[in-house]
């Protein structure tokens, strides 16, 4: 492995790496604003300047500068080395780079930081980026002095609506062009550009257009300062009150890795942030997925119901036991959910198969939507492959389910989740008794004889298998909301009341029962936290 020296440390690198990328691989952070590992290099912020020692035998590339000597009060000639941007400079074997240990680099960083803050508005108290803002962090680390400018800062438009999801504040913008490069390269929609020059720089949307592609929230995510803000999250929460759980996006079967940011004091989920996973979603997530966090709270079933009347979980469980106990196994349809985790589906299917003797399995979920070549899949369920694998050798589709009901072959339904894909809800008109474990309101939940409130993905750990067959772990964020319980727990309780107690009291018990491969032929994906730039 070829190596180079950074601050007298040997750092390995791969051929073609720039200094900043090689350093990042080794966990060293060179301060930067405009560079992003997933975008091309712009080198316009000049924050990552480092000193590169000349190769042996060559003189240093140096500049003649005038520096102010405070003792004599005069400007004196001095030589300082020409610093290079680490984001652009390719690494060569044996290169010697000085980052923190060079006083020239120190002064350069301090000057760049001073420049960036010259016209910056005093917005910290109202800026959403406060707490995760690079200007704040780098100011304290690298500059920690006041600026020398005494003039009035330049004023620019604030609160410019770029599109349905993004609001732009030109005064906070440092013109790093990350948003422009993102739209150009990743979203493949070159709608943003930089206008005017010098300190009048602003980001502008192409005339006649809005920032409305499918990945607009990523521009907010790559923005290192508070210039681009998401109107969905604007002024909702302060980030230092939020904690992050490492979850998997539930929007489609790509299974992008995400951080779910929630406030533990009120058990509220506030937003998603993408989590780096080079094998799945690299550094990005789509707008649909980013806004999918709302499903943690919107439209939830949080109380048990018997025939539409509110009830408690204990009473509803007893009623469910009575209903299911007297049902002929032939007429029982079991619907698994592509929206639920492997553990939920496994526990549900096992109870249905071993305790209730059912043999008719179907897999439900959200109807398909729009997919594209960048990140999104048409299948809008996070765990289709996982759910299907527990549905036995010949699971039926929702169409088969509709036919079976029409043909009167179904007398009872035991369902996980209340989504029926493309099936028309009216088909359910002639349904017999239905015991539904639902997280959200839906056609099945409305017609349930017994409705048991189920916890969503955010309220329990779980495993989800994406379209590529990778099984990914999702971490619990909130405690179970309302009266809801995880589906595996409700299934275990039902089984216990029906006389077969599997002894599942913790998720680990269910996972043990699933076996080492989880009963699913899937490649174990990584859920390790990847912090993106």
């Amino acid at each position: 492995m070829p190596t180079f020296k950074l601050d007298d440390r040997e750092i390995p690198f791969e051929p073609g790496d720039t200094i900043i990328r090689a350093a990042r691989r080794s966990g060293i952070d060179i301060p930067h604003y405009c560079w992003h590992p997933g975008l091309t290099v712009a080198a316009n912020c000049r924050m990552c300047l480092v000193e590169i020692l000349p190769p042996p035998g060559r003189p240093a590339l140096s500049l003649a500068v005038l520096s102010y000597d405070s003792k004599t009060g005069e400007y004196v000639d001095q030589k300082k080395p020409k610093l290079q941007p680490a984001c652009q400079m390719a690494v060569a074997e044996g290169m010697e780079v000085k980052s923190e240990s060079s006083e020239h680099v120190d002064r350069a960083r301090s000057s760049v930081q001073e420049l960036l803050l010259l016209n910056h508005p005093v917005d910290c108290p109202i800026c959403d980026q406060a707490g995760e803002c690079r200007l704040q962090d780098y100011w304290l680390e690298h500059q920690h002095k006041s600026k020398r400018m005494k003039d009035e800062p330049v004023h620019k438009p604030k609160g410019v609506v770029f599109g349905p999801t993004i609001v732009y504040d030109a005064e906070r913008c440092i013109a790093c062009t990350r948003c422009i490069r993102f739209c150009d390269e990743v979203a493949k929609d070159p709608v943003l550009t930089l206008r005017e020059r010098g300190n009048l720089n602003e980001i502008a949307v192409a005339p006649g257009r809005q920032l409305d592609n499918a990945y607009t929230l990523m521009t907010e995510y790559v923005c290192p300062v508070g210039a681009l803000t998401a109107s969905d999250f604007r002024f909702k929460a302060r980030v230092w009150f939020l904690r992050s759980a490492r979850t998997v996006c539930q929007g489609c079967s790509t299974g992008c890795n995400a951080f779910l940011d929630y406030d533990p004091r009120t058990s509220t989920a506030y937003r998603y942030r993408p989590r780096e996973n080079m094998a799945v979603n690299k550094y990005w997530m789509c707008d649909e997925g980013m806004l999918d966090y709302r499903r943690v709270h919107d439209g939830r079933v949080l109380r048990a119901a018997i025939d539409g009347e509110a009830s408690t979980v204990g009473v509803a469980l007893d009623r469910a036991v009575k209903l299911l106990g007297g049902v002929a196994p032939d007429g029982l349809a079991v619907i698994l959910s592509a929206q639920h985790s492997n553990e939920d589906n496994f526990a549900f299917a096992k109870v249905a198969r071993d305790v209730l003797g059912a043999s008719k399995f179907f897999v439900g979920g959200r109807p398909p939507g729009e997919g594209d070549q960048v990140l999104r899949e048409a299948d809008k369920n996070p765990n289709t492959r996982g759910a299907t694998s527990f549905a036995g050798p010949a699971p039926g589709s929702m169409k088969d389910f509709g036919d079976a009901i029409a043909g009167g072959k179904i007398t009872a339904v035991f369902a996980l989740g209340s989504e029926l894909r493309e099936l028309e809800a009216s088909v359910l008109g002639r349904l017999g008794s239905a015991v539904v474990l639902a997280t959200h309101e839906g056609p099945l939940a409305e017609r349930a004889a017994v409705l048991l409130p189920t916890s969503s993905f955010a309220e329990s750990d779980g495993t989800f298998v994406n379209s590529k067959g990778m099984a990914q772990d999702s971490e619990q964020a909130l405690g179970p909301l309302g009266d809801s319980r995880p589906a595996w727990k409700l299934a275990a309780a039902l089984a216990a009341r029906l006389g077969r107690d599997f002894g599942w009291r913790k998720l680990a018990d269910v996972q043990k029962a699933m076996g080492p491969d989880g009963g699913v032929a899937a490649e174990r994906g990584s859920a390790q936290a990847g912090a993106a730039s």
Partner: protein
Amino acid sequence: MARALLELLKKTFAGAVLESWSQHGDETAVIEPSRWHDVAAFLKTSSESDMSMLTDLTAVDFPDRNPRFEVVAHFYSLSKGHRVRLKARIGDPAGEHVHIPSLSDLWGSANWLERECWDMFGVVFVGHPDLRRILLYPEFVGHPLRKDYPADRIQPLVEYRDVPAIDKVAPFHHDEGMSFGRQTFDHIGSADGDDPELFPGQKAN
């Protein structure tokens, strides 16, 4: 002068001194837990160190490390005016096997200091004459200064001792009172928690 003491310790107890360093003017040595008492006795009796006082004995919990706990003792010599900090690392990440020899036969101050350490961290001092809780009441459940003990946990109500017919007011429920705090909010139920509504016979979480 305490640096010379560290050198002396390393020479005398070659195998027992695992690490040593100086920082901010303090000298620290990490000791093998089984030799804790020997090293401390040497510090007290040897004429070069003459540690007449055990000024402080406490512990620090590092839940990500194995061994998890660090018992930290500070010694001071009245005659020589030097100090040294001894540490010993004990306990596994689950919080078991947390024991270390007691120093109460060497210094009287160890008696209460070790009792407090037991109370707050659950460190068992082997050979202590009277290891019971000192700052908390005897029915207290848990060891509060451990990092996995959430600061806002409600303790179970203690049965009032043998005084009949006195009303006790219930403590604050966890969602009453001040909610702002920086770190622990672990009163929020885990999906794994006990659930008597689903499994009658379990206790409430």
